[in-house]
């Protein structure tokens, strides 16, 4: 896993053994006793005695050998190779242990996973999930189909969270300064500190938490504040939606939450917002949005239309019908102009001129919006200034969208606050020594607070800092006390989803380490006893008290949320003066000089996922950059600066300066540099170490999301690693595409190159596939390139993280990749996403060339890959036209770190060194379904099998099923005229086909463009 440069190959020299199965060895030692009871697995004990292990030992001796070798290590090498040579012979299987339960849980069938509904939170907002649990080990996270915020899908972050649970870098012990301490000592210290505070009514006590939507937690904090009236509770999240809250306060008189209903929107305008793939509710938004876009034969051919105005190109922008790149200040002007154009009351046209493309847009977009009153939507990104937010509200109000598409509700935060102001106040209090005891609960301000607060220095002045967190991070480092936090899958809790739906969190596994939750700690502070569960139950009783609570509670446990707890839309009164005020302020501004755009990274978000190998290695949309962030600029600006991708530039704001590698990105706005936050972690863990630069150094309270910047070229070079160097489709008809008009005019546009070769177009008689014939259809129009499928596949199929250096050598292991092609003007390109996994060709070129028949065809048309038969000639990969096969050039799988063994999917073999691997259509899921069906002596139902990528996809772009069943969803999709196979003229007969992409451009703009 963390074996980034593959220095320590895990050999599997057991002649007939391709690998350790994922489930085999949860190192019981490393996990706590209660977990041990649940393990039915064979234990690690004998492992040291297996030949594989013996060689591994030698391999470790050899580890330093990557570089030039001394005589000694040469001799060691000789030894190792002798051993290897000898081990070709058949070896004897070691005797393994069976560890049954002492008392077996009733509902548990060994080998059958159980699913539990719970929720994960980012910035307090719940994303509802179902968690697959194997004998008490959570192994896979899925969306919660019943929950309105998920409908069965999740985003990439939720998928990757399982790896955070098992992250070996998680903090495991209570630390006092730099010494290992105990929970008892910590509580004692806390008691003493609080004792002092009790006297002065908590005047010196501060509690810092992330945004809180959890009623239980809020109530608990309330209880604490009751005892310490003068204490202060500060909420801070780098991605707290301050601007939105503030805007709603100004526009509606009270801080409100805003959510969108895209199922009613015909025209959507996003202003610097990655609506569809990040932020609260993105999963649901993506689903609703795409459902309004998909066109099926016979149905009325209507599509919604998306205009994206953004500085850094986002996934949302990539699926927009029209995209324009504008610097943030220009976006502000654009909004103002749009409001004016629409005749919004109080709006004034800005004095400063817009780029003419933008100017054209204002007219066209306004026209379009006006034509769709009540069925349109304007979305302002969370990072835009309050004024822009206000205007966006105003526009929606003016268009009568408030209600149908633009939904205003009570705030989902229990106590909505201007977080940055609170944090600033806290910082100054600390500076001036007014703070004596600080509780930092699961947040990391030292890393992610604006630099000008000098939060770290301020904290040094606080005598008692207590930190609770998953990692011993930058903040923990400066606290006297650090307590390891429990992961959300280890603890009870509750939180609200983006729409206010109250979701319950339940523990999937006993805490792996001596961890505690915020609730724990706060109960301690409040001097309460009892369990967290009781606390939550009592809190819920308050909410849903009365008779039948037990019933509701049990149902909630099952569903994962209280159904119907969604917040109801509120009618709101827009304050004209607020609009006028905002408009005039914007009208004054002008767009000039270079700006830096600070945004959350698509992979590591605000930095909380920086130590997550899966997310680090997932290629970012648009750039396909991995393991790094960069100073992203447009081609024109790069030319202006005289830099190319990889050159170093220095970015300087009033906050400070950083050096960053340049990435030239087609479609990026002019006059601005995008720097993604969340990298450059100083105490982020082994995975995060060395990845990227810390863009928070540029963020100040005045310009948190960027502002004026000096950019200058400096010496040096950084190898920015990408998984795809070539953006050009080379006039190869890989992603077939058309506009809605073109399609209606010519429904067969996808087959202009002629149809696929006939089935009998071969000198051989072709195989007939009776019974089930598995296939996949992918709707290219729906793919946002959000990467959720890639992470889901990693998790489902135990795919190794290979690390920056190996990716640089084109050795990433992803079974599914999202190819990205640019089309058209370099400064304003169209982008196409194409998810590519094994096509399961019926005439598979890979199979024929394998000398040992390690890959062959199943009667259901699967391209079986047998890892334990593979000898690793790599011939199959060479001969694969789609290059979807992946090879273990080293032993990439970490089979040593015990805790990582718990993470593995027990149904998928762990591949060892020298073995080829590839997508299997999740054959393990197919087999489970088949076995269930056979046991019940019935055929497999359509939809009974979903592949990991299909299940997670927020936009339902991927459909798997039986193509021999004419009624199956996949068969229907494959009957569409737009359905085509990539490279099908090679007569490979891919089972994975694509439904050509449709765009719905505004003819007016298209003509001018």
């Amino acid at each position: 896993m963390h074996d980034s440069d593959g220095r320590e190959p895990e050999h599997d020299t057991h002649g007939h053994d391709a690998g350790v199965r994922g489930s085999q060895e949860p190192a019981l030692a490393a996990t706590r006793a209660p977990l041990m009871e649940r393990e039915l697995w064979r234990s690690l004990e004998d492992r040291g005695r297996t030949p594989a292990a013996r060689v591994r030992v030698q391999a470790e001796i050899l580890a330093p050998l990557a570089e030039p070798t001394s005589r000694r290590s040469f001799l060691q090498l000789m030894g190792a190779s002798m051993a290897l040579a000898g081990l070709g012979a058949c070896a004897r299987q070691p005797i393994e242990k069976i560890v049954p339960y002492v008392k077996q849980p009733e509902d548990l069938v060994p080998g059958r996973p159980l699913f539990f509904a719970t929720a994960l939170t980012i910035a307090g907002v719940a994303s509802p999930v179902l968690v697959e649990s194997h004998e008490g080990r959570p192994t896979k996270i899925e969306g919660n189909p019943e929950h309105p915020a998920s409908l069965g899908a999740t985003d990439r972050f939720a998928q990757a969270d399982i790896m955070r649970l098992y992250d070996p870098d998680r903090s495991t012990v209570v630390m006092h300064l730099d010494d290992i301490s105990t929970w008892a000592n910590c509580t004692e210290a806390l008691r003493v500190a609080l004792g002092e505070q009790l006297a002065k009514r908590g005047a010196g006590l501060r509690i810092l938490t992330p945004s809180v939507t959890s009623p239980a937690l809020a109530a608990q904090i309330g209880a604490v504040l009751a005892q310490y009236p003068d204490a202060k509770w500060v909420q801070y999240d780098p991605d707290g939606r301050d601007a939105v809250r503030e805007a709603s306060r100004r526009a509606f008189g009270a801080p409100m939450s805003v959510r969108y209903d895209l199922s009613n929107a015909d025209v959507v305008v996003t202003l610097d917002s990655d609506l569809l793939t990040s932020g609260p509710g993105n999963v649901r938004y993506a689903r609703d949005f795409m459902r309004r876009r998909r066109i099926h034969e016979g149905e009325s051919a209507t599509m919604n239309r998306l205009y994206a105005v953004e500085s850094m190109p986002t996934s949302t922008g990539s699926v927009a019908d029209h995209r324009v790149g504008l610097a943030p200040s220009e976006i502000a002007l654009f909004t103002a102009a749009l409001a004016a154009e629409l005749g919004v009351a109080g709006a004034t046209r800005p004095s400063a001129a817009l780029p003419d493309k933008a100017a054209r847009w204002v007219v066209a977009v306004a026209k379009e919006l006006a034509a769709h009153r009540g069925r349109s939507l304007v979305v302002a990104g969370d990072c835009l200034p309050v004024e822009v937010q206000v205007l966006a509200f105003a526009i929606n109000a003016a268009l009568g969208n408030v209600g149908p598409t633009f939904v205003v509700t009570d705030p989902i935060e229990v106590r909505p606050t201007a977080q940055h102001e609170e944090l600033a106040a806290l910082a100054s209090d600390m500076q001036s020594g007014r703070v004596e005891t600080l509780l930092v609960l699961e947040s990391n301000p030292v890393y992610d607070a604006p630099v000008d607060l000098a939060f770290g220095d301020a904290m040094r002045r606080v005598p008692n800092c207590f930190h609770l967190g998953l990692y011993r991070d930058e903040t923990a480092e400066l606290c006297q006390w650090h307590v390891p936090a429990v992961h959300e899958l280890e603890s009870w809790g509750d939180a609200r989803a983006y729409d206010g739906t109250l979701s319950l969190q339940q523990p999937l596994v006993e805490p792996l380490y001596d961890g505690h939750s915020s609730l724990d700690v706060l109960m301690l502070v409040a001097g309460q006893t009892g369990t967290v569960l009781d606390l939550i139950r009592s809190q819920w009783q308050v909410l849903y008290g009365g008779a039948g609570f037990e019933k509701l509670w049990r149902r909630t446990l099952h569903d994962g949320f209280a159904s119907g707890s969604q917040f109801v839309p509120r009618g709101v009164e827009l304050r004209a003066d607020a609009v006028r005020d905002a408009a005039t302020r914007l009208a004054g501004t002008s767009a000039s000089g270079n700006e830096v755009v600070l945004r959350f990274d698509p992979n590591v978000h605000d930095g909380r996922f920086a130590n997550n190998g899966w997310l680090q290695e997932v290629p970012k949309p648009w750039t396909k950059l991995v393991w790094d962030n960069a100073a992203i600029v447009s081609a024109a600006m790069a030319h202006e600066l005289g830099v190319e991708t990889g050159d170093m530039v220095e970015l300087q704001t009033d906050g400070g300066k950083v050096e960053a590698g340049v990435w030239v990105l087609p479609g990026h706005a002019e006059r601005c540099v995008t720097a993604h936050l969340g990298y450059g972690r100083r105490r982020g863990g082994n995975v995060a170490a060395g990845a990227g630069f810390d863009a928070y150094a540029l963020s100040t309270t005045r310009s948190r999301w960027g502002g004026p910047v000096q950019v200058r070229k400096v010496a040096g070079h950084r190898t920015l690693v990408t998984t795809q160097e070539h953006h050009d489709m080379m006039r190869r008809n890989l992603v077939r595409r058309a506009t809605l008009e073109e399609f209606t005019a010519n429904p067969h546009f996808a087959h202009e190159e002629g149809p696929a070769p006939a089935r009998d177009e071969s000198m051989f008689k072709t195989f007939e596939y009776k019974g089930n014939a598995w296939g996949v259809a992918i709707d290219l129009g729906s793919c946002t390139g959000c990467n959720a499928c890639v992470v889901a596949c990693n998790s489902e199929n135990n795919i190794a993280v290979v690390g920056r250096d190996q990716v640089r050598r084109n050795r990433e292991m992803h079974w599914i990749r999202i190819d990205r092609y640019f089309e058209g003007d370099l400064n304003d390109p169209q982008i196409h996403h194409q998810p590519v996994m094994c096509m399961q060709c019926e005439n598979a070129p890979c199979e024929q060339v394998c000398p040992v028949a390690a890959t062959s065809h199943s009667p259901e048309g699967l391209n079986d890959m047998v890892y334990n038969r593979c000898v690793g000639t790599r011939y199959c990969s060479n001969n694969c036209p789609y290059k979807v096969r992946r090879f273990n050039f080293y032993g990439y799988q970490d089979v040593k770190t015990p805790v990582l063994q718990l993470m593995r999917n027990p149904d998928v073999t762990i591949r060892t060194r020298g073995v080829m691997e590839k997508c299997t259509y999740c054959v393990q899921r197919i087999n489970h379904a088949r076995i269930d069906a056979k046991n019940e002596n019935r055929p497999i139902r359509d939809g009974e099998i979903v592949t990991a990528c299909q299940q997670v996809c927020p936009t339902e772009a991927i459909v798997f099923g039986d193509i021999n069943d004419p009624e199956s969803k996949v068969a229907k999709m494959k009957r569409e005229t737009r359905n085509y196979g990539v490279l099908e003229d090679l007569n490979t007969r891919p089972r994975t086909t694509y439904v050509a992409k449709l765009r719905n451009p505004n003819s007016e703009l298209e003509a001018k463009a």
Partner: protein
Amino acid sequence: MSAPTGSTPRFVPQRPPVIAAGHTSASVTDKISSVVLGGTPRWLFGAFGIAFTGFMVFLFAVTCLFAKGVGIWGINIPVGWGFAIICFVWWIGIGHAGTLISAILLLLRQSWRTSINRFAEAMTLFAVAQAGLYPILHLGRPWLFYWLLPLPNTMTLWPNFRSPLIWDVFAVSTYMTVSLMFWYVGLIPDLATLRDRTKNPIGRTIYGMMAMGWRGDSRHWHNYETSYYLLAALATPLVVSVHTVVSFDFSVGVIPGWHTTIFPPYFVAGAILSGFAMVANLAIPLRHAFGLHDFITERHLENMAKIMIVTGLIVTYGYAMELFTAWYSANQYEQYAFLNRIHGPYRFTWYGLIFCNTVCSQLFWFKRIRNSVKALFVLSLVINVGMWLERFIIVVVSLSRDFLPSSWGMYFPTKFDWMTFIGTLGFFMSLMFLFIRFLPMISIFEMRTLLPGSKTKQEAA
């Protein structure tokens, strides 16, 4: 040999003879066997030392490979094959000259072959031995190489006989075996000679065993010749088939630049070209070192040069034809694959290839160049480089840019790639030197047949 017309001055009056005048059966015997029976010249120690160091480098690289995995090489996805397969094909190619010279030229009664066939065959063996290593080394799990053999096992699994790699296994091992037998059979009478000449008792025992008690009985000679000719007749189609099968590794694939029907002929031609180049590279120094100018004459060198002209033309035709087919096919993938060879990031290899194999091989049209030993030696070296480049282009350049631009990628050899390559050169030369030192590098008994004194007819007449 029994009808050595090719060598009688009658037919080729203007050319130098294949063996200098004034030699008798005795002088030939003593001259050639003295190389073996005489002491070891000092330079041989030095040369062997260098070669053996190379061999050690090879062992080191291989040990690292087994200990750490093929990841130490530059290979990746899409370029799954690198130096290993390039060298495999290259060595196999070089391995063609030996059998070709001994078999085909024998059948064609080209008696000038006689003085070079022995070490050409040895060269074949050692080259094929090098080639044979690579398919095993390049495996991800080399310790399972035996899964490529049709051995009964508890999995009831068998090799996939549709895979060209299995064809390789059979072709190369057959070629190895047959060449070995051909070489050994040819050696038997000379081993007898050495047995009877050597003063050293150990040597005598060893040569004695290897000679199997050969006495030169006329009945033996008859069976011997029959089977030797039959072997030649069998080796000829074999030698053609081997590189054909090797070329299948690529032409059976679907990758643009691989999927070509012209591969078999032009692989074979290329093989012969590089084979003769290598023979020239070995023959010229040896001839100097051991003063064998009488036996390896200008005529031999010139003939080799001529063969290089022809095979050089054939491969050139191959290159041209590839380009033409790509253009004519109107298949955009094919067309791009070849444009990429000329314009792509690896273009220099393609230009190098054209220079080495086309330009240089055709320089031999000039008699002055053809007859200059130095030129021949240098150009042969160049041609060997060229043939290596050809394989590099076929393997790496084709793979680096195939169908989906999204998965295009470059291949850069690592130090381990180079060590494995240089290493085999050392391995090869070490074996070569051992052979020169301990076995007659020119077939003595066949030389005898070339002597005027060996004719019965003229005297009888």
